[in-house]
């Protein structure tokens, strides 16, 4: 059964997620859409038919978003700025969490009886798995999922994201302190040395990985054009 209110909500959501259409713009477009629906229903159309035609008459969501973007330049810029802030905070969260994961893994393995270079290698691998999982998750994030815009971003969500940094730092710090406490100085010296090598390899591989991600995104971007 077709639910007009649901359909209107979905349509509004799609428009608002473009980030260029403001709340006031949405209100105006919503009023317009409802006027067309009322006009067509009066002519005998079903709600489904009326909604389909109204949507068509208002125009494609992407074209509309582009036109609104030309007028709402400041809004568009703030939207981009918001993404940069989210990217910066999110990147720092990932960095802290991966360091904490690596330290925690090393500590647990050592407590579990492992020693030598394998601890450093395992710690680096744990961090790498975390990064790969995060990047894969972001890459495959559903298009219909929640997308932050200057309207729907809440202080709670941002604080929730940022608070992961001190928590992860505390876990990482505690793990490293624990390692320093339980290892004898020679083993600890070797461990730090292995970890330092791991870190150099790791940070270089990370950059290569990001370039690969960028290339993948570029391929996705080009695909629909090639089809035309």
């Amino acid at each position, binding site marked *: 059964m077709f639910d007009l209110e649901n359909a209107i909500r979905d349509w509004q959501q799609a428009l608002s997620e473009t980030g260029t259409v403001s709340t*006031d*713009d949405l*209100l*105006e*477009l919503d*009023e*317009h859409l*409802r*006027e*067309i629906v009322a006009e067509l229903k009066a002519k005998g159309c079903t709600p489904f038919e009326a909604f389909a035609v109204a949507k068509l*008459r*208002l*125009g*494609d969501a992407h*074209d*509309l978003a582009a*036109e*609104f973007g*030309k*007028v*709402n330049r400041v809004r568009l810029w703030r939207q981009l700025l918001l993404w940069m802030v989210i990217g910066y905070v999110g990147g720092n969260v990932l960095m802290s969490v991966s360091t904490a994961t690596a330290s925690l893994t090393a500590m647990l393995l050592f407590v579990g009886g492992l020693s030598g270079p394998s601890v450093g290698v395992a710690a680096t691998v744990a961090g790498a798995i975390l990064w790969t999982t995060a990047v894969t998750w972001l890459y495959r994030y559903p298009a219909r999922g929640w997308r932050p815009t200057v309207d729907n971003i809440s202080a709670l969500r941002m604080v929730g994201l940022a608070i992961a940094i001190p928590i992860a730092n505390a876990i990482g710090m505690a793990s490293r302190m624990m390692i320093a406490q339980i290892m004898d100085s020679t083993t600890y010296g070797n461990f730090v040395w292995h970890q330092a090598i791991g870190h150099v390899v790791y940070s270089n591989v990370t950059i290569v990985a990001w370039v690969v991600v960028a290339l993948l995104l570029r391929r996705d971007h080009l695909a629909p054009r090639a089809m035309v």
Partner: protein
Amino acid sequence: MISRELIAASTRPLVMAVLARGENYGYAIIQQVRELSGGELEWSEGMLYPVLHRLEQEKVILSRWAKAENGRKRKYYRLSASGARAQQSEKEQWLTVHQTLASLWGIQTCST
């Protein structure tokens, strides 16, 4: 049917001309243009709003939110004082183009 380019170029003077007749809102502006053009001018209706908002930024038109008879909020637009002058200049420009084309095509006009 009118071409896309001509529709894009004529939206601004058409909106100003409708608003010169009095305060109005998006849906009704489109209805008026459609009726007067005998259905020849088909706008992608949502595109009207960016045009209205640009005119508003240029202070050519003013707007206010009011409660409509259906109980929902509606944004009404009207021509400002400077908008009335801009409308006069738009009118002269379009008439110049119109008269030039009419003379070239040998169509008699009575606008002189």
